[in-house]
């Protein structure tokens, strides 16, 4: 009952923040003006339909997908400090995307998610190779962080030597929703297929939380579940990163917050994590936009400001 209520409230919150993001910005719009913005003849058509609406939709998609990916990773390796960005997967995907854009600028943007995906997979495999399958929470996190440092310094280097447009650079350094529109949404849509697959792992993720021995004795194949969950997580992360850059800490904090709200059963946790991720990213983007218009901060800066202290707190708490 409590879980249903929490999810419902979260969904309401998402709707409310979407309404806010449609109304606030360089120009503030009233409710009627927003509605009229869906009409092609209106003067607000461009602001609403071409700018704020796609951006909100994108925040919903990316927030949900990145949060889901974090929940999968945390569930499957039973490590509260893990998430695609702490483990360097986001940054690896970002590096691959940046390499594609700077070194092979003639290649179609269609390939961007695929480049990001291969970068993410390579980063994940590399981490696996360095850490092995049985490493403690701290060790995995610290190795991941070191890898992330390598990838981001490579991105920095490419940005400095082959300068892109300034706002684009910002996107790849911190993660941002700036200047994203319907095109990017259509690029992201096919990847939504992964979400039902992720949900189908819910029951097995519960059992993995009980430890390898018990999960096996309850009839779950550990290695298959791990492989599937991690592959889906990398796919979700890479597709988001290829569009919005590595938005830090989102995949880390959303599952934790959701777990506090609705508990650890993955059947409930996974959808709720997505809702929490949406709320965080929508809010981060909204604040980043309205803090000092027309200058925009990037959403990634905002998530880092919320996420880093939370990470510290987790670090303090984890055994």
């Amino acid at each position, binding site marked *: 009952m409590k879980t249903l209520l929490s999810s419902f409230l979260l969904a309401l919150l998402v709707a409310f923040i979407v309404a806010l993001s449609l109304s606030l910005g360089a120009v503030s719009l009233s409710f009627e003006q927003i509605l009229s913005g869906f009409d092609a003849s209106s003067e607000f058509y461009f602001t609403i339909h071409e700018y704020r609406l796609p951006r909100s939709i994108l925040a919903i998609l990316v927030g949900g997908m990145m949060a889901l990916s974090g929940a999968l990773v945390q569930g499957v390796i039973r490590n509260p400090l893990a998430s695609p960005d702490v483990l360097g997967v986001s940054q690896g995907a970002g590096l691959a995307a940046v390499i594609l854009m700077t070194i092979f600028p003639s290649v179609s943007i269609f390939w961007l998610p695929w480049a990001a995906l291969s970068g993410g997979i390579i980063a994940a495999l590399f981490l696996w190779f360095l850490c092995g399958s049985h490493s403690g929470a701290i060790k995995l996190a610290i190795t991941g962080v070191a890898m992330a440092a390598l990838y981001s310094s490579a991105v920095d280097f490419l940005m400095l030597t082959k300068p892109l447009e300034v706002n684009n650079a910002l996107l790849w350094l911190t993660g941002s929703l700036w200047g994203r529109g319907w095109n990017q949404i259509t690029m992201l849509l096919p990847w939504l297929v992964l979400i039902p697959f992720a949900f189908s792992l819910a029951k097995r993720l519960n059992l993995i939380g009980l430890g390898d021995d*018990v999960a096996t004795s309850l009839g779950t194949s550990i290695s298959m579940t791990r492989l599937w969950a991690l592959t889906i997580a990398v796919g979700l992360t890479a597709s988001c990163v290829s569009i919005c850059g590595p938005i830090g800490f989102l995949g880390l904090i959303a599952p934790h917050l959701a777990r506090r709200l609705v*508990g650890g059963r993955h059947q409930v946790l996974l959808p709720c994590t997505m809702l929490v991720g949406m709320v965080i990213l929508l809010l981060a983007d909204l604040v980043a936009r309205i803090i000092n218009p027309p200058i925009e901060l990037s959403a990634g800066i905002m998530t880092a400001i919320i996420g880093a202290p939370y990470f510290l707190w987790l670090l303090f708490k984890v055994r």
Partner: protein
Amino acid sequence: MSLSTHNVSVGYHGQAIVKNVSLTLPEGKIIALLGPNGCGKSTLLKAMARILTPMGGEIHWQGNNLHSTPSQYLATQLALLPQTQPIPEGIKVKDLVAYGRSPYTGFWGRLTKEDHKIIQQAMEQAGVTELSEQFVSELSGGQRQRVWLAMTLAQDTPYLLLDEPTTYMDLNHQVELMNLFKTLNEAGKTIITVLHDINQAARYCNHLVVMKAGEIITQGEPESVLTKELLESVFSVTAQIHTDPVAHTPMCIVE
């Protein structure tokens, strides 16, 4: 006849800890695996619960190789309670116990009325009914052990495998647990447990398997197994065997 090992060697990283063991576990008994630390009793138990794959030999369940039997089916036949358990975040006691039903539920893990009944019963047997709304992470070590036991009971299998289940429990809960084993055993379950305490094993179990250095030294009823010579050779202690004045089972007193 149901669970048997044939020349089984098991270990970690290519090192055999259990060496060439052939053992048939009698059905319908409470069986204790005994032996000094590192003798391979837990390793053997894990192999029988298919957590570890034997390096050599075969383990048979109902005459078929355990490791080629479908895992989902085995989950309805053999339940394992490991020695240490992780502490899952944000999981209530009733959720955890319900996870024991997962071999029977569909892919979303939806519980039927029957499932709820079995969960309720398992919680009563393990004495954790009043904890059901608490989070597992908030419990004490002994309470947690009993909650996990309830989870294993909810799995509703004819065989129960337990790895030192009494370790973190208070004395009264230890006694309750051992008595629960008796009740379950009378209801038809076979219980295989690793135990540390020889006297506890002799008092509550009706079949003892004694191991040393990865091999089986002897097995049988407590009265025939527990001898001065055995304690001397396996545990390197000099001890006397007396009869327990209450239960009339053998017990050893170290000199």
